[in-house]
């Protein structure tokens, strides 16, 4: 069943939804990356909630004009208009009043959504039996998706992607360093608005599939996931598109494979699965990598301290140190140093003495700043310099009994 779904064998509707969700995931991931890098990820929450009044007004207008209230294009146009108004309100609140951005986001989100609900109840009492589809915009409803709906989503997604590709450089610049971008003569405020406009476009396009509450997840989670895997913004953008597209595709397929699996939530959960995997297993930034790094560091500290203790003939009591030394063949089971252990210990002590000289000599000031108790002195000084230091210290003096 799942295999059929993954290979798009589950019929017309499932195929349409899968293609639409994949395209939506790609464009949401790519667009969301800029928002995330600009540290304004939650702006998408305000934008998405602000679409609700527009959907309702669009519906009412369509009905008042005698049309079918469920015309997707009309509803999307309405939602885009009200999201744009919400965006401008939020921008105005942050720029012209003392409110911080988070308060402005929350205010726009709750007020627009509340007003949308008022309008929803108005529509319910309008007595037209055709509003059934409107609640679907809250959480997305893919059951009755039509060819034209899929086409609108595909075209919208493609147009958004194209626009992102065109203005990606100024957006990246503004995201990383708005002051520098302003100094370069870029209209930062307008680029910000363009970025928000793109987010709005993705939100509007995604209303049908994942709904206005969960589209936020598609804009935030894939970029955050991608950020674990790369430090380069172009790669993060591509990876976010990939993660989003894959989540959209897998989520749509999964939800088609069994009953009672709503598409939007499944896509979000698949997306979160990618995030969780990245959080745990990504190289460098992942939790596992950090734990391994920490353990390696701990090991080096213990061995170093153990060697110094051996060199000075001190008893080692720390069990971890003893175990590590024994495992590297530096001490025997009874805690007495082996020949290699003695040699390494003498070297460690000598290095420590060399560092002492380096750190007390102003001529080596820059080198001394690199001292952290673990660094091998050969990595910072040339052989001649070390020989020079050794002349100051004198010959080997043997381990005290």
């Amino acid at each position, binding site marked *: 069943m799942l295999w059929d779904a993954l290979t798009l064998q589950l019929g017309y509707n499932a195929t349409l939804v899968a293609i639409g969700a994949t395209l939506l995931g790609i464009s949401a991931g790519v667009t969301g990356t800029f928002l995330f890098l600009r*540290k304004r*990820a939650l702006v998408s929450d305000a934008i998405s909630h602000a679409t609700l009044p527009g959907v309702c007004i669009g519906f009412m207008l369509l009905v008042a004009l005698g049309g079918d209230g469920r015309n997707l294009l009309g509803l999307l146009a309405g939602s885009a208009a009200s999201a744009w108004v919400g965006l401008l309100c939020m921008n105005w609140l942050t720029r012209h009043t*003392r*409110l911080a951005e988070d308060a402005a986001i929350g205010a726009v989100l709750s*007020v627009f*959504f509340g007003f949308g609900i008022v309008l929803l109840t108005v529509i319910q009492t309008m007595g037209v039996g055709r509003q059934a589809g409107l609640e679907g915009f809250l959480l997305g409803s893919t059951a009755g998706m039509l060819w034209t709906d899929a086409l609108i989503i595909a075209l919208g997604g493609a147009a958004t992607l194209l626009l992102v590709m065109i203005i990606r450089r100024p957006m990246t610049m503004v995201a990383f360093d708005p002051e520098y971008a302003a100094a370069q003569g870029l209209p930062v405020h307008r680029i910000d608005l363009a970025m928000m406009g793109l987010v709005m476009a993705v939100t509007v396009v995604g209303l049908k599939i994942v709904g206005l509450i*969960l589209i936020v997840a598609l804009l935030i989670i894939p970029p955050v996931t991608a950020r674990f895997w790369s430090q380069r913004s172009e790669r993060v953008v591509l990876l976010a598109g990939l993660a989003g597209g894959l989540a959209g595709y897998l989520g749509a397929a999964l939800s088609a494979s069994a009953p*009672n699996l709503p598409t939007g939530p499944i896509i979000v*959960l698949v997306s979160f699965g990618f995030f969780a995997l990245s959080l745990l297993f990504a190289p460098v930034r992942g939790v596992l990598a950090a734990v391994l790094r920490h353990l390696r560091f701990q090991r080096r500290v213990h061995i170093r301290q153990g060697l110094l203790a051996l060199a000075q003939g001190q008893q080692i009591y720390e069990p971890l140190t003893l175990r590590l030394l024994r495992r590297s063949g530096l001490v025997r089971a009874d805690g007495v140093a082996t020949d290699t252990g003695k040699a390494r210990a003498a070297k460690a002590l000598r290095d420590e003495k060399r560092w002492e000289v380096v750190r007390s000599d102003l001529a080596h000031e820059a080198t001394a700043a690199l001292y952290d108790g673990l660094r091998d002195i050969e990595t910072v000084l040339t052989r001649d310099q070390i020989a020079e230091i050794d002349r100051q210290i004198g010959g080997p003096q043997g381990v005290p009994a």
Partner: protein
Amino acid sequence: MSGEEFVPLSLTPLLIGTFAAIACALPGNFLVLRKQALIGDAISHVVLPGIVVAFILTGAISTWPMMLGAAGAAILAVIMIEAVRRLGQIEAGAAMGVVFTTMFAAGVLLLEQTDTSSVHLDVEHALYGNLESLIWLDATGWASVLDPEALAGLPPELPRIALTMLGVSLFVWLFWRPLKISTFDEGFARTVGIRTGVLGMALVITAAIAAVAAFDAVGSIIVIAMFICPPAAARMMTNRLETQIGWSVAFAILSAVTGYVLAGYGPLWLGAADAVSAAGMIATMSGLILAGAAIWGPCRTRAGAPSAS
């Protein structure tokens, strides 16, 4: 309007709406000042999986398990946000976005998977509550307010939200000085021995409790609106925290009362037959108040001083 009609049908929803608004606006003041306003948003989203899990475990719509489930989900969300933020080195906003959308999606999925056809539990209810249905059928008029027999038939949401409001007020009153100091100058607060981490957590948990209790009665949309709009509007009116709290409570009451009245009677005045959503209307009114404060408020600009013009 006569007492016979007003007391049973409108008094209790009005009081519940007002108490819920105050209970959320009080901690909201500090959250807005600390730039944590969206915690309320996150909490009200994650309440959904909490109540669904509670329903699955107990198999019935009963209040206490659901409140516990919601509170548990709120606390879990706060912990997860902090974990994602620290482990992944992700900025707080994005971490919040990852966690609350995922938990909300999980809630929707669980709800779809569970058979809830026999009970009244759905996403729409969770979002905008049913304030209008919290009527007091045992009342016959103003006299019932003093009649113990009729009082026994009060909707249980009313005493619960009243208690929550009192609890939240008590928290703010008891911890007034540390809250105020740590909100404006966390470093100074630490040097005078205030445990700012614990206090910040306590504030978030208080907000979560207020959100859960209010959510039970009025749905999550009012909760978000009341956490943010009245305090934000009050922020434009004054530079003193004491005055700001006063304004925010006044704005909260004003939006609850006008919102409820407009939702219930506004359409009738306009000639329509049915009322509109009270929760949505209260949120809308709080937004209008905020807009008014943002345009005319004496302290609306960032510099803070009353503007010269």
